[in-house]
């Protein structure tokens, strides 16, 4: 279908106009940078704020369009995203220069006043660095920029004792009261929650929300033992990268309780119940309600995983990149190789009737078969509480599809995590440009192998033969103490016959045998089903 020539002309004109605006804004920023030393400190901080307000007002339309067209960014659009990141970076750098000039320029007697009045420079330095990081992610660059400078700016705010002063910043023309500390927490939270798991519109919505919630972002030097908590180190040489899940006893410079975020999330939900789009400002207002609901779902999952961490203390993989993980594909390989070295004394029998005498306790600990099977060694791009992103080499890209079952081991000694592929895309920018990226959602951090004995009775002429076929299944312990959330992952062929199953816990001479009935399908993919089940009967042995 041919396009309307009139439309082409107006698109070209709009594009030329946008280009002119960008050139004007860039020239203004460069001129401001060169003149910055001539301003007094307070005036310099004000000039930067004015530049931010003008920049956001004149580019809002284009940024909105970029976010809405996020499904398939062209090379030009990626270039534009990078341009926005660079502009915010330049403004952030100017603000940081102002913070560095405070001490040498202020007379000792007026130093405190100078710092207080120029507080906006610290605020903008951190706020705009967060904006730049966001636009890099929107443009498809999944690598997070080094946080050294961000930490330095925050450290200097701590040193000058202005990190908790109430300041005002402008975001999309909206004046917001905040502190340097809250802005710092917002930037780190945005990086943590937004590292590759969210689409650009949802990332923008999340950012609008985090900015609105800044009054609830307080860092503490003491850990919160009863709340879901993240920790951070401002030492650039620390092994802790950004905000990391808190493990009991783990030392850090600061701790961030997530309980206030839960209250804020409830507030946002309540706003939708009243039919009002939250927070009522920002580019996010232009997006469909589905996108907002997607952010609610995402935050709920993330917070839930962090809360579970309080209840279950165990050896866990701490989110960090630059590691290569072993990834097993498909139910057969996961159960035959991935889970083969996990000692679980579980045995399942499929029987046609209750109380069958054919149960046998099968030792599922058998030798590793990994060498002969399909194990991929994939680079971890990003990890959150609920999922992980991988770069997949071209040779293996065709083997993975959305909804495939995978199991991941992050290193020797770590338990296997079970997950499902929820996203498969081609990277458009960054170090992984043109490679396949997959996103995996975790189903369980502790899947257990169980053996299923299928009994077949076949009748040919007058001969009746009985056959036993061993099939592997995976048991997942849910988070409800009532057992309602426990699941069994098995082959779709087994599920289709909707059998009764018996399962033994304990040894051969002593233990409990349970009879279970498969229920509804919770999730499914190629060749596998994750089933709910009801426990029907129990028989004690020994």
């Amino acid at each position, binding site marked *: 279908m041919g396009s309307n020539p009139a439309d082409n002309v107006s698109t070209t004109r709009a594009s030329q106009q946008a280009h002119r605006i960008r050139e004007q804004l860039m020239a203004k920023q460069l001129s401001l940078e060169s003149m910055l030393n001539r301003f007094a400190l307070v005036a310099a901080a004000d000039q930067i704020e004015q530049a931010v307000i003008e920049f956001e007002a004149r580019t809002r339309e284009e940024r909105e369009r970029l976010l809405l067209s996020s499904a398939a960014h062209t090379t030009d659009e990626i270039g534009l995203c990078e341009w926005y990141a660079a502009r915010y970076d330049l403004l952030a750098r100017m603000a940081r220069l102002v913070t560095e000039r405070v001490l040498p320029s202020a007379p000792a007697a007026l130093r405190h006043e100078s710092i207080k009045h120029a507080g906006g420079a610290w605020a903008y330095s951190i706020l705009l660095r967060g904006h730049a990081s966001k636009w890099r992610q929107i443009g498809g660059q999944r690598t997070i920029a080094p946080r050294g400078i961000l930490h330095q700016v925050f450290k200097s705010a701590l040193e000058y004792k202005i990190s908790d002063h109430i300041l005002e910043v402008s975001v999309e023309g909206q004046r917001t009261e905040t502190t340097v500390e809250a802005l710092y927490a917002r930037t780190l939270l945005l990086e943590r929650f937004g590292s590759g798991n969210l689409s650009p519109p949802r990332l923008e919505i999340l950012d609008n929300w985090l900015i609105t919630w800044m009054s609830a972002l307080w860092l503490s030097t003491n850990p919160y033992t009863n709340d879901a908590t993240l920790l951070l180190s401002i030492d650039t040489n620390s092994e802790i990268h950004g905000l990391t899940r808190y493990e009991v006893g783990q030392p850090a410079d600061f701790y961030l309780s997530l309980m206030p975020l*839960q209250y804020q999330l*409830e507030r946002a939900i*309540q706003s939708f119940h009243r039919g009002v789009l939250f927070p009522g400002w920002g580019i996010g207002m232009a997006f469909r309600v589905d996108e907002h609901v997607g952010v609610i779902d995402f935050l709920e999952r993330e917070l839930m995983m962090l809360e579970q961490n309080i209840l279950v203390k165990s050896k866990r993989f701490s989110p960090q990149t630059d590691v290569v993980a072993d990834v097993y594909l498909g139910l057969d390989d996961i159960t035959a190789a991935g889970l083969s070295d996990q000692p679980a004394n579980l045995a399942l029998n499929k029987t046609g009737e209750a109380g069958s005498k054919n149960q046998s306790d099968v030792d599922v600990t058998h030798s590793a078969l990994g060498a002969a099977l399909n194990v991929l060694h994939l680079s971890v791009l990003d990890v959150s509480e609920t999922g992980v992103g991988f770069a997949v080499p071209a040779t293996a890209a065709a083997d993975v599809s959305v909804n495939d079952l995978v199991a991941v081991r992050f290193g020797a000694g770590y338990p296997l995590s079970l997950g499902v592929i929820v996203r498969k895309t081609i990277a458009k920018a960054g170090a992984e440009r043109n490679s396949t990226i997959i996103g995996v959602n975790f189903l369980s951090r502790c899947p257990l192998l169980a053996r299923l004995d299928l009994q077949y009775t076949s009748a040919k002429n007058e001969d009746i033969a009985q056959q036993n076929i061993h099939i592997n299944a995976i048991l997942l*312990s*849910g*988070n409800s*103490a*009532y*057992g309602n959330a426990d699941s069994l992952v098995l082959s779709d062929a087994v599920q289709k016959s909707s059998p009764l199953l018996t399962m033994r816990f304990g040894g051969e001479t002593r233990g409990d045998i349970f009879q279970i009935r498969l229920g509804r399908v919770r999730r499914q993919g190629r060749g596998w089903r994750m089933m709910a089940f009801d426990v029907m009967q129990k028989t004690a042995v020994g």
Partner: protein
Amino acid sequence: MDKPGSYSGFYAAFTPNLNSANQFSEYPIRRRLHDHYVTSRFPAFSDPRHDLRDSDKVIRYARELFDDEQPRRAIELIRIAIEEDQSQRALWLALIELCFLHRDAARFTELILAFVAEFARDPVLPILSAMRRELVPNDPAMVNARELQGLPNWSVPADGAKNDVLQRQFHAHLHHASMSHLNR
């Protein structure tokens, strides 16, 4: 009774905001956004004005969400359905049971007060007192309350009753095996 402890540790607002729907007649655009939100958040409820008044459907779907480890969504669904029509007594009771399972004494009390305001002299009040006594054993106001005899199963659909005792025993075995494995 065993302490369920399921999904403890998270904050959830249980008490419905009964004023939420009041402004919809004045601002139809809010009604539209609300309905769009409901269909997006709960895809099975494609006709919110009708579906949210179907108590059986709401309880069935909420229970599935609860069992699928989405307790916040389960609670929110019942809450938003009550906000749509606060006379749905079965939904209030389902919400009360989920709040009880959550072991949140403060919000349980808040919810009971809201329930009593809607359904004064309801026959379930003695059960509510027993539940409250179970949650706060030392509460002097509940000293004469009777002992709770099992869960009332208000949050379970009529045909979805399970053998809770066996299900819990099975889970205990499975949880133990999982923890042994993780901590080895």
